[in-house]
């Protein structure tokens, strides 16, 4: 923090941090029942860190919600548990497996777990009565997300209507809701992938080990390197081999690809990300490849 700087200048990371903390406090002050959606990935961990800072020395005044696909990386779940223990926050797990069992969502064998998360999430929001759900979405991730507001209104069905968004002026957020509606809140809207990494480096934030270079048995499918696992049986012609890889995003392991990389420290990751010519989603997210508007369509249904 450049607090003694002669010209009272804040670095861009400090500005982003200040803006995000402002958003966290605003939501905690104005909403009855907020929750922080937590995937265990780098963005949600940065969100937890910012929430910790916003309310320190008090505890984070809302729980953390994870939508467990059943296909999550064990390293990610371990990191999640560490964070939840350290911060003393309540963890709510909404399980896709459970949702399938209870008939909340239907597994037709074709729909990805990523998509089945939508119904599972909306059900959890409704059951617990959450009125605001923080998400780690960033506008630089994807073109539909570039249109997203910091406060994103969701109707009674959890749907996003991109044509009818509330104008967002100055830092005056409008959190008005009707019965049954909720708000998605994106405190990281103005952060880029590189900002997230710089911040993780600056703050020394613990993240899941799979972000760092490691040995893994992987196979190639649709131009992506996927993890060999019982949930993801090899198709004819596919062959797994051990490679040196790391992950750029974290999600359902049947759809989240890794990249070959020797980057083993935050500094090396920053260099790699800065030099990369492919977006993180383009490189490693199978779920965005279904159509040009895959993200927009999922968001309209209630995806984060």
């Amino acid at each position: 923090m450049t607090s003694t700087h002669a010209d009272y200048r804040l670095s861009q990371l400090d500005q982003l941090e200040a803006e995000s903390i402002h958003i966290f406090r605003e939501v905690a002050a104005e909403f009855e029942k907020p929750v922080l959606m937590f995937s265990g990935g780098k963005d949600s961990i940065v969100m937890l860190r910012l929430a910790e800072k916003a309310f320190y020395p008090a505890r984070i005044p809302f729980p953390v919600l994870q939508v467990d696909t059943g296909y999550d990386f064990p390293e990610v779940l371990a990191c999640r548990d560490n964070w939840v223990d350290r911060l003393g926050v309540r963890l709510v797990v909404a399980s896709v497996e459970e949702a399938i069992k209870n008939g909340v969502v239907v597994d037709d064998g074709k729909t990805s777990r990523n998509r089945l998360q939508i119904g599972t999430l909306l059900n959890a929001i409704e059951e617990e009565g959450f009125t605001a759900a923080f998400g780690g979405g960033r506008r630089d991730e994807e073109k539909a997300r570039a249109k997203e507001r910091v406060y994103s209104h969701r109707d009674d069905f959890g749907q996003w209507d991109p044509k009818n968004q509330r104008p967002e002026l100055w830092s005056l957020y409008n959190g008005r809701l009707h019965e049954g509606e909720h708000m998605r809140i994106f405190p990281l809207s103005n952060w880029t992938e590189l900002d997230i990494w710089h911040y993780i480096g600056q703050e020394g934030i613990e993240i899941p080990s799979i972000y760092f270079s490691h040995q893994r048995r992987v196979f190639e499918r649709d131009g992506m390197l996927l993890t060999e696992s019982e949930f993801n049986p090899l198709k004819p012609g596919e062959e797994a081999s051990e490679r040196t890889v790391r992950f750029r995003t974290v999600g359902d392991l049947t759809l989240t690809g890794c990249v070959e990389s020797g980057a083993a420290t935050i500094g090396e990751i920053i260099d790699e990300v800065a030099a990369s010519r492919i977006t993180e989603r383009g490189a490693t997210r199978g779920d965005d490849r279904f159509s040009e508007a895959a993200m927009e369509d999922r968001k309209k249904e209630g995806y984060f």
Partner: protein
Amino acid sequence: MATEAITQQGQQMDMLRFATAGSVDDGKSTLIGRLLLDSKAIFEDQLAAVEASSVSKGFDYTDLSLLTDGLRSEREQGITIDVAYRYFATPRRKFIIADTPGHVQYTRNMVTGASTADLGLVLVDARQGLTEQSRRHAVLLSLLRVPHLVLAVNKMDLVDYDQAVFDRIHQEFTSFATKLSIPDLEIIPISALKGDNVVTRSENMPWYQGQSLMHHLENVHVASDRDLVDARFPVQYVIRPKSDKFHDYRGYAGMVAGGVFKPGDEVMALPSGLTTKIAGIDLYDRQIDEAFPPMSVTIRLEDDIDVSRGDMLCRPQNAPTPSQDIDAMVCWMTNEPMRPRQKLAIKHTTRTGRALVKNVQYRMDVNTLHRDQDAGELGLNEIGRVQLRTTVPLLCDPYAKNRTTGSFILIDEATGVTVAAGMIL
């Protein structure tokens, strides 16, 4: 670049937010596309998607506007329907572009994009010269007190890089700008398509002695745009851990809206008017020696006075006057017009209440600056001066003095929609 250097760079860079404006065919998408391309903010997979989509639409060129038109319906119609935010960085600065659509619902979107901007970028087509639209955009940016304005005279390649064309537009705009409040104006001849004066100085226009657009964006001084004199701290949230370790901790969390706060400073809490001193300022687990805009901090006070969300800390000799009668310029953002006697919710800093529209004093024609005193009401995208009576006193400053304590939004209580942006006079 070495790891250490790049890490350092990420931490030390500052940030510039700018809003773009211009008519539909002024080349805004091309310019944004070029700024993004040249700063390597467009990735191969994004470019490949845009190229594929251009081919499937039957274009014989890569339509860079497909990069910024992120929604299905925008791509279908080939128009931008909403503000989009874009990001790029150079070694000196990170940039946030509020890309506001040129023609549909322009005022509302311009106001949205400009409300947080440090700089406004207005494009004109060199062949057309100043249009009604470019004047209107300049008026809006001036009304929103965007401190820096750049007029980019685009498509210079189509007028043979003729200095006379540029000089004429330059002259016309500067004389128009004298009627507005524009503290810093830069006028740059460019060709977004060919890249003249966008990132590097153009050899095609040796008569132009100024800097390139990117150079200006990287160097324009924004740190001093904030008010560092009048101390304003709207209390956002009260932090009371009540834990064993922090049993007596009581901190007032918020974002500094003006001035510099230091431990030991005498402060007054509004609306109570009680005074005390700052015991300490916390930034997470660290105590800091001063807080200034736009830092989010927690202030502890020496005495246990009653302070809660919606209150404001300031200096005893320099405080805003609490008022329930508000004179303001508002931009109306919804189809149903704003009418006298209408009751709305108001949000100002961290304070919310209700507001009654006492009257609409005049409607401003943003093209001619003419004030229509007989208007009586404001329609969608119209701007005018109104008088409001609020249920709670607002702790406000004139917008011209402080963009945070001088701004508010109005909300329709039935629909929950934000219906107006307001700037206090």
